[in-house]
Structure formats: C-alpha cells, structure tokens
C-alpha cells in the first residue's frame, strides 16, 4: 500500500515538473508582443497653448469637498469604545483648524455604532461618541454653539457588510457640515 502511494506521488511530481517545463514559453511570448504594441508610432502634433494657467484643480477652499478630502469627516472607534486615539485626534485637530478658517460653518456630529450591539444601548453609545467628538473640538477652541450632536446608534451604517471591516467603518463619529460652506 505504502509503495503504491509513494509511486503515485513520484509520478505526480514528474508530471508536475513536466508541466512546468513546457508551460512558460508561450507566456513570455505574449509579454514580448505586448511590449512591441506599447511603442507609439503616431506622429507628434504640436499645438499652441492658448488657455491661461489656472490654480491646481481640487476642491474649492471652504467647500464640503475640501473638508472631506483635505481634512477628513470621520473618526473611527474601537469595538464598544469611545476613546479618541492619536489618529482620531489628528483628524479632529484638522477639523478644528478648518472650522477656525470658516467661522460661518455649523456642524452636526453624529455618533454611529456597528450592528453587533443592541438597539437602545447603541443609541446611548452613539450619543456618547458624538459628545466625545464635540468635547474634543470644543477643547481645541471651536465654539460649542456651532456644534450639534445626534446619535444614530446602529441605524446608519456606511458599510453594508457584516464583517470586521464593515463593523470598524460603521463605528464612527461623523462631522457633517450643515451650513456656511462656500459651495
């Protein structure tokens, strides 16, 4: 029985080696062909630049898009947690600085939870998360009258999945600009 097994295994190895030896050739040929096709033979056309130079493209300063892209609108919490780690604090410092530049902006801080908790406890936990974010922004000089808070508990997930990755995204404090943006 053992002998048979060994023989079979040996045969499998031989077969596998054989397969390896013969297969790679066509693959390399395909790559060579692709390299040839990359060479661009079309004639170069020179056109005069007529447009005036503009400022680098990107979100308009003071806009919602500016806040989203250049500042960050969410901080993320640990499982059942409501502490702000250094990454969260960095984002909130950028938010506070941005809010200082655009004093007409009012915000709503929403506390969100993942689906792995019960509804009412999560409503309370979301309220606690929103308050922690608000308190930190206030400690950085943002006028508390510019900040409202709300808890959505587990009612407003941003990731639809039911796995660790989705839950981590759904445990967040979301700073929503409600008014006073430039666009």
């Amino acid at each position, binding site marked *: 029985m053992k002998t048979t097994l060994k023989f079979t295994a040996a045969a499998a190895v031989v077969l596998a080696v054989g397969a390896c030896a013969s297969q790679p050739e066509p693959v390399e040929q395909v790559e060579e062909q692709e390299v040839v096709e990359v060479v661009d033979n079309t004639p170069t056309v020179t056109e005069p630049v007529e447009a005036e130079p503009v400022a680098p493209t990107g979100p308009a300063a003071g806009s919602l898009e500016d806040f989203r892209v250049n500042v960050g609108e969410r901080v993320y919490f640990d499982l059942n947690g409501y502490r702000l780690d250094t990454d969260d604090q960095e984002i909130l410092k950028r938010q506070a600085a941005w809010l200082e530049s655009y004093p007409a902006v009012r915000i709503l801080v929403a506390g969100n939870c993942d689906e792995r908790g019960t*509804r*009412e406890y999560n409503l309370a936990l979301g309220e606690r998360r929103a308050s922690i974010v608000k308190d930190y922004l206030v400690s950085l000089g943002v006028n508390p009258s510019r900040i409202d808070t709300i808890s959505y508990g587990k009612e407003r997930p941003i990731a639809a999945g039911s796995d660790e990755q989705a839950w981590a995204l759904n445990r967040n404090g979301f700073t929503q600009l409600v008014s006073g943006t430039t666009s």
Partner: protein
Amino acid sequence: MTRILTMLMLAVLMPLSLAMPAAAQLQVRVDEGNFKPTPLAIPDFEVRGENAEMAQDIADVVRADLESTGLFDIQNPASFIQKDLSIDVQPRFPDWRIIQTEGLVVGAYEELPDGKIAVSFRLWDVYGGEVMRINGQPGRRLTTTPDNWRRIAHKIADSIYTRLTGEDPYFDTRIVYIAETGPKTERVKRLAIMDSDGANQQYLTPGTNTVLTPRFSPSAQEITYMSYEGGRPRVYLFNIETGRQELLGNFPGMTFAPRFSRDGQSVLMTQAQGGNSEIYLMNLRTRQSRRLTDHPAIDTSPSMSPDGRAIVFTSDRGGSPQLYIMNTDGSPRTCPSGGRDVACRITFNKGQYSTPVWSPRGDLVAFTKQLGGRFYIGVIGIDGKGERLLTEAYLDEGPDWSPNGRVIIYFRESRPGAGPQLWSVDLSGRNERRVPTQTDASDPAWSPLLE
C-alpha cells in the same frame, strides 16, 4: 353493530373513568420536561347559514392558533371516524379514542337575522367521556359582526388553550413592530401592526422618518416609540385609532427607549445629553418627569415590575452592559450579592446583557445576551439566579412577553447579512418559530389581551 361495540367499550371503560379522580381530567402540562404534544381534534364546524367558507376559515384559525403553541398535535381530519357530529349531541367517544385523540372541539357556525354571526363550541374530554366546562358552562357561544370573524376564532382558541393548560390566554392580541425595507445603508423603517398570528398587517407611519422600539400601553390603544421626526431622536405617543402622534416631554438632547409603566399612567424613557444617559419616569397626566438613575455611565432600557415598585435596566457602570434592578422610589435594595445598594446588578455570568423586560408574572426578566460573537435570548430570575438561554443566532435581539408570560417574541438575523425577521419561542425553550410579516421586521412588542 357500531352501537353494540360502543356500548361494549363503554361498559369496559366506565369503571375506569368512574375510578379516576376529578383531577385526572385532560390537562396539558406546559412545563413538563419530557414533552409530548396532546392530540386534539377540531373537525370543521357545523354550518347553519350560507357562508360555509367563513365557518371553515374560523375553524382554520382556531386550529392554527392552538397548533402554534407547540402544545397540541392537531389531528388530520382524514382520520376522523364519526362524521355526524352535532354540537348538541354527545360525540361517540370510542370513535375518537380509536384515533387516540384526547380532546375534541365541536363547533357550530350560525348566521343571525340581524346580519351578525355566532359560533358555539364545546370541548370534550375524549378519555374522560365528558364535556369540559368553561367558566362553569358546558360550552360557549360568541357573537360578532362578520368582519370581526378572526377575533371570534382567537377567542375560541384562547378559551380552549386556557381550559386545557390553566394558563392565561394570549391569541386575541396584536403585535406592533418596525417594518424594514430598502438596502442596509438606506433602510426605511415604518411602524406596523398586526394580529398575533400575523393577519391584518397595517402600516401606521409612512417611513419618512426612522422610527424605532414601539411599545404598547396597557390599554392597547396607544403606542410609545422613538422617531427621528424633525431630525431629532425623541420619544412620542401614538394613538392607534386616530393616528395622532404627540411628542412626550421637552428634554434637551435625545430621548429614547420608552416603555409604559404597568398602570399606563407613566412612561419610562432614557434621556441622553453630553455623553450621559439617565432614566426618567414621566407622568402622562401632569407631564412632570422624575429622574430615577444618577450615574455617569450609560443607563437605559428601563422596564417596570408588574407591581410598579421596581425597574430593571441596562447599565455599563461596571465596564460592560449588564442588567440592574432599582426601586422606583430610589430607596436602597438588598442586592443578590448581600449588600444594600440603590441599584443591584443581577447578571454575573460571562457576556454582555441588555434589553431587559420584566415578565408579566413578575418573577423573571427576559434579555438579549452577547457572547463570543453570538446573540441569545434568555431569562433570569429577578434575584439573579436561574439564567436560561432560550435561543441563539447571529443576531437575536429585543424580547417581549406574551401577556400571559408563556411566550417570548423577538427578532432574528439568522446569518450575517440576512434581514431581520420576527420569531417566537416558548418559555420552556421549545417551539421556536417564525412569526410571518410581509417585509423584514424588528423591535416586536406584544399587546395586552384585547378587550
């Protein structure tokens, strides 16, 4: 021939039945460990009128109600030997003993001259060979308008259930819940109501605002729930008959987790502000509120004892969500641990506990438990002893009691990504079953017995 056989069998059985003490009458024991459903025959009702279909429908609802308890084995009509049953004539017991039926329901449907309908029924103890009296009477007759036919059916099922088990009835009740539609990230949640068996589903709110956690008043006329109306999560009162909604209280911050006091005079709720949640009791007449808890931790999900003297609630004051009991008047209690405190923790096993609901009988608290990535519905004694887990799933949450304290309704997500559905389970942990709804459904609450 049949008659002779019958007489012979009667002669044989008579001394036996005479020898049996009255207590040996047919009795279904709901808590028996080694459980076997009791065989029960409910033949189609005798029809005295035009609408044979309605007579049939009523009998079907009675059968379905009793079958849903898991306590009865409703016999297949094909096995019935006696076809000439009449409500006023004693059935031929041997015909029913042969098919091993223990209880026999004989009913008659009538159409009355004033347009109403009436259903009469008798419950027979097949082995005892006698009629089972209900409230001292040898049968019952119920009259109503034809559009109310389902309620007559539920009341008949309630009578039979109560007579056979000794438990209070619960079929003639309603269930309020949250109907859910749409993708997970844009869920639409509407307040919905239906009969206890899932019939007559109705939507009470349009879904423009997210609504959560509805609960019945003891009169079954009003619901208290939380709505995001106007962008603020707050507790409302909803009148089922008028459809009118009314904000409860004028608290800063948010209010949520409402539940009526047992006398219906007050509503318990949670108010959260500045990262702290506390429990309040609001008198519905004076609109005055009193704060019951005073702790920087989360205190929420209050539920009152039947005597109104204590509440059970969720708190994470010990580091994780656990269940606590405190006196409604705030006076200290003697805790399960032996010490005296204003709030006594009653859950000490591994895991997180929340959504406590005090049982109508007062001795148990139903809860949601989280442990090792699974969710459970369980019950525990108010002294913190005798924890029993009844269900387990990816998500089982939000139990509520049938008004007789025998059955627990809750919602379940059977696997990751599955929408929530309503389920019920017997207090024994037996008879786990889906409660049908048209859409995904969560946050069920059971009404008291209807008037």
